[in-house]
């Protein structure tokens, strides 16, 4: 992945957040407060506005700045979390111009750690982590087995989607859905879902 790929991936994320805005919001209406799609679309809308500024930066800085824009515009829980994820990944990648799949995996790991620290959450709490962590594990496993980027990415994407399905089966213990207790069962987590769309955008550039 080079800088061009990263910019294209971010463009795809922007498109996805715009086109999935209503869907994500609907999911959040059911078990949250009905703003997740609106929040994400606002954040990526701002990234679109600042696209010209971003494209002159180097790869790592683009990613870090995307994080900063998300923190500054998304709000809610997802803003600091996704913002931290991108900022951590960008910081980790500092200086790199061309990213290997191994770089990507390590940056992703760093992003996940950021989310876990900021959100004080672990797997199984019905959050974006339930898509992130399985995706990360599946990619690593496939990569070690086959060394095939395409296959690894596909495995990750499948695992993220499974993770979203899994969120339907559990009680939320973090985020707003946790206030519903048992009533949160049966519904998929909006943040896990939005993460899957973001991962799809990245996957398309690998």
């Amino acid at each position, binding site marked *: 992945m080079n800088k061009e790929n990263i910019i294209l991936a971010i463009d795809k994320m922007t498109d996805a957040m715009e086109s999935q805005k209503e869907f994500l*919001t*609907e999911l959040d*209406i059911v*078990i*949250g*407060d*009905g*703003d997740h799609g*609106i*929040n994400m679309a*606002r954040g990526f809308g701002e990234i679109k506005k600042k696209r010209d500024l971003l494209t002159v930066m180097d790869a790592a800085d683009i990613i870090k700045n995307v994080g900063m824009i998300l*923190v*500054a*515009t*998304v*709000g*809610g*829980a*997802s*803003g*600091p*979390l996704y913002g931290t994820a991108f900022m951590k990944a960008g910081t980790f990648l500092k200086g790199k111009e061309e990213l290997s799949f191994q770089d990507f995996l390590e940056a992703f790991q760093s992003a996940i750690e950021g989310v876990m620290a*900021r*959100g004080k959450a672990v797997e199984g709490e019905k959050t974006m982590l339930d898509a992130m962590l399985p995706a990360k594990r599946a990619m690593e496993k496939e990569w070690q087995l086959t060394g095939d980027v395409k296959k690894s990415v596909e495995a990750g994407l499948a695992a993220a989607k499974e993770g979203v399905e899994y969120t339907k089966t559990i009680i939320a*213990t*973090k*985020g*707003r859905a*946790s*206030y*519903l*207790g048992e*009533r949160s069962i049966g519904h998929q987590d909006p943040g896990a879902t939005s993460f899957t769309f973001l991962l799809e955008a990245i996957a398309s550039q690998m």
Partner: protein
Amino acid sequence: MKKFINDVAQVENEMILGLVKAYPQYLRKLDCGNVVVRSDRKENKVALISGGGSGHEPAHAGYVGTGMLDAAVAGAVFTSPTPDQVYEGIKAIAGDAGVLMVIKNYTGDVMNFEMAAEMAEADGILVKQVVVNDDVAVKDSLYTVGRRGVAGTVFVHKIAGAAAEKGEDIHKVQAVAQKVIDNVRTMGAAIRPCMVPAAGKPGFELAEDEMEVGIGIHGEPGTHREKIRPADEIVDLLLEKILADIDYSESEVAVMVNGAGSTPLMELFIINNRVSDVLKEKGISVYKTYVGEYMTSIEMEGFSISLLKLDAELKSLLDEKADTPAFKA
């Protein structure tokens, strides 16, 4: 969606502008985003900042003024404000005495305020925080995010604000805010939902004979659904949960009967009639009652009851002068 608005994208901005234009004697808006600060800034006191998503009007900007908040930060509807907004608010009010952040316990609010505090601390500003978690509808467990912060937050603003206005230092102001938090409990119910303007859909739907019990203040569904009952029985249901949570026996309390946004005052008074009777029966004496819209969920039709257990210190701070657009004492 039938609302007196112009453009869903401008709801928060126009609301804050309309508020500041209504009360220039109290409020000033910062140029950067929806951050409102006291227009007559008082120096040499601990500065209080609070906020959260929009949609809780008159909270939080309505409580900016003498004896309450120094700044309020308004995010998008039901969305916590971002760290940079909060940071701007902190910078605008910070003095040597430090800044106390009054945060309602929501993952988003806590994270965004904490990130702002990190930014301000990097500038050498002294920042402390308290997290309000008064909603007994939600279980307070080590394994969850804990109880939500709801209408009881207004008591924190009032009492910590009074302590700050009196010139107490930040440790004292924080301690008294925490004392309020430790002694206030709230629970609510609703019979009609609200909707985030940008979403254009209600947070839940109820049949003509249903109510949602244990609602929060973000239009989300409550903890469970029941057949609607006479007002007195709903009050009993909520009070039972509240009174079971901490020991109120033989104490003096401040009562807040808070409208969720579209509950007629007539009904809030009918509700208070029962609240007052039940407390009397139980030997709990009411020091002061507040009936009205203090922490709303846009146009939700519902209410919450808050009971703040008082001691001499809290009583005297509750009685101190407050002069803000939405709360005067």
